[in-house]
């Protein structure tokens, strides 16, 4: 199976560190899968790196499951013809503080049949279900096991 992670920037912060840790864990759990990070700006050191890195442009025709980590990136990747499924990991409800945008901007992303949503707590799960659609999982923290469970559900 091909599993991709679309992260335009990787920096020295806890959030990006957790993402890389989870990807490394997934590489250990699924040694037969092709796991790749799509990234153009890698500003950190990962001594334990087990994944491949490709330029972001390669994600457009990537045939597999593609994880994205914010709505802005998802708004770009949702038009990609390659990925068979995209999974948006929402750390917080991005529409909840931006009420002055056209609702179709969110609708075209979240309600896309090719996209599933992961949220981080029960409240976000309920609100995402009310406003858009039922998320595929609640992952309180990003872990390899959590990602693995989501991939098995697809």
């Amino acid at each position, binding site marked *: 199976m091909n599993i991709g992670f679309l992260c335009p920037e990787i920096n020295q912060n806890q959030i990006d560190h957790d993402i890389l840790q989870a990807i490394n864990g997934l590489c250990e759990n699924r040694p037969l899968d092709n796991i790749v990070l799509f990234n153009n700006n890698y500003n950190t050191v990962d001594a334990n790196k087990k994944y491949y890195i490709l330029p972001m442009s390669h994600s457009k025709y990537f045939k597999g499951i593609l994880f994205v980590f914010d709505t802005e990136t998802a708004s770009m990747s949702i038009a990609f013809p390659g990925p068979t499924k995209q999974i948006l990991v929402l750390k917080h409800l991005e529409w909840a503080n931006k*009420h*002055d*945008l056209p609702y*179709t901007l969110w609708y075209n992303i979240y309600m896309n049949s090719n996209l599933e949503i992961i949220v981080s707590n029960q409240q976000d799960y309920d609100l995402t279900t009310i*406003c858009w659609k039922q998320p595929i999982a609640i992952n309180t923290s990003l872990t390899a096991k959590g990602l693995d469970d989501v991939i098995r559900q697809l």
Partner: protein
Amino acid sequence: MQKILAHIGGSRQYRSILRHISIANNTNINFMAENLHSKLFDTCYVQKPNIILYPGVEYTQEIHNFIVQKSREVQIVLYLDRPVQPVDLFKFWSDAGCKIVSYNRAASMASDVLECDMFYDDSIFTIIPNLARNCKIAVSLSIDNKKNHELLDSVLYPTQKEYNLVLFNNPEFKNPQNIGIYNEPDLNYILNTFEYFVDVDQEFSLEAAVCGIKNLDINNNTIIDALINQQYIKPILADKNKCSNFVNNELIKYMGI
């Protein structure tokens, strides 16, 4: 050929009228619409229109002066959709030969006036075939947040988890269920894909009826009561409620085209 110059602005109904004039199948009309604020005299000097269409809600000193100076050369049609103050203006407009179009009896004090009943834009609001409805409630918020809070606070998450309310169209209403603003085609899609509709200001009853959504009657009810008792607003739709009929059958004739 009559050249009509219209000011872009005003209310939703006025903009619907402009849209229908622009698509009217009438070869005698040459229609232009642009923002005329601060350039009414200039634009008229260049374009030399026969008719000026202007919304009363944006009545300024500029259009007033224009009527004083140019009303004998150009036919001025004012669209009024809310009561006008001061009422002396009606006499002034009448003396200057202005024509008045009054939406929903807003200008009942004027003598020569074309009354139009409430209408909806039939070029936008229609049933979209083969769309499934979700079991949620779309709420079109009022700009008055006090009114919104009174009606909604008891039915929003986390107080109520049973009813799925999705809120639209007031960026100042801070709630995670408020998912943004819509334009008219978006509203048409909402009215075609949600099961229930709550219109806090009650200005979209015709549109809701056209799209077949259940428009909850919140006049004397809470949302939950209206939902449980199945109390809906059901206006009777007639051909006169279509904006295209009003423009093609009445307004264009009234303007003397």
